[in-house]
């Protein structure tokens, strides 16, 4: 297998890492909504934590996208 083909296959495989990140992000917002339905008045105060947790989790998915982009455009 030559290097060009391996690059494209690697880029495709790297995108599979976003599966875990997607599940994690859905988890965060789902838990927030569940908690907010039980205690709506306290929900607004936790909005900062929600956004922070979302961004930190999404970062891991973006790391895997970064590997795919690096393989496609930089190597």
């Amino acid at each position: 297998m030559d290097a060009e083909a391996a690059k494209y296959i690697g880029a495709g495989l790297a995108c599979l890492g976003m599966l875990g990140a997607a599940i994690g992000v859905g988890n965060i917002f789902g838990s927030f909504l569940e908690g907010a339905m039980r205690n709506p008045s306290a929900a607004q105060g936790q909005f900062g934590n929600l956004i922070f947790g979302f961004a930190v989790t999404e970062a891991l998915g973006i790391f895997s996208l970064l590997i795919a982009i690096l393989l496609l455009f930089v190597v």
Partner: protein
Amino acid sequence: MASDPMHQFQIAPMIPMELAGYDVSFTNASLFLVLGAALPAAFMLASSAKAALVPGRMQTLGETAYGFVYNMLYSSAGSDGVKKFFPLVLSLFLFIFTVNMVGLFAYNFTPTSQIIVTAMMALLVFFTVIIVGFAKNGLGFLKLFVPSGIPWPLYIIVTPIEIISFFSRPLSHAVRLWANILAGHILVKVFAGFVPMMMDAGPLGTVGAILPFVMTVALYALETLVAFLQAYVFTMLTCIYLNDALHAADH
């Protein structure tokens, strides 16, 4: 017209200059770095120019930005964190936010899409934490790696994990901002490149080119959100790490 999505990240000299064999040209990256410093400064100066007890519109904007970052730092690091680090944290937030937003416009260059810019900011925070941590806590700073309230045999596992996670902080701190901005900009360019590509495919393609166009607009909305969010997350993590530096002995 380059439809290559990586073309936007090229650094082109605007005013070529040379100093002792080194290329110190004023590039497009330099221009936007200067804008990232000058625009927030001008904004804050303008909002405090006619300081009144009942704020006018400009002052309200400045106070919103100031209060937002102040509350972020106060809730993480407490009042001594605010006393020591508020100028640093406000500068970081306003710089990243301005540079991300300005870079969204066409033909503009985004400095935070270069790893060197985000890595330098993350290393700045990292070394500030280490230096201030040792200066303020002495060797008690190492209590950061030995959290209290754990049965002693677990320390053999927990302490190496804590040390590794401490040293991986600047890496994830830098790469999070970099990868988000880089990936977002590439995504926008790829979808925008589909529009002329479809228009080249005859009349049916020209009608269908509305689809990638709408997608590009939607991606721009997402990118605006990401620009603010990444500035917020970078600053939030900075506040948390600075709190670790100041209050390491409380672990």
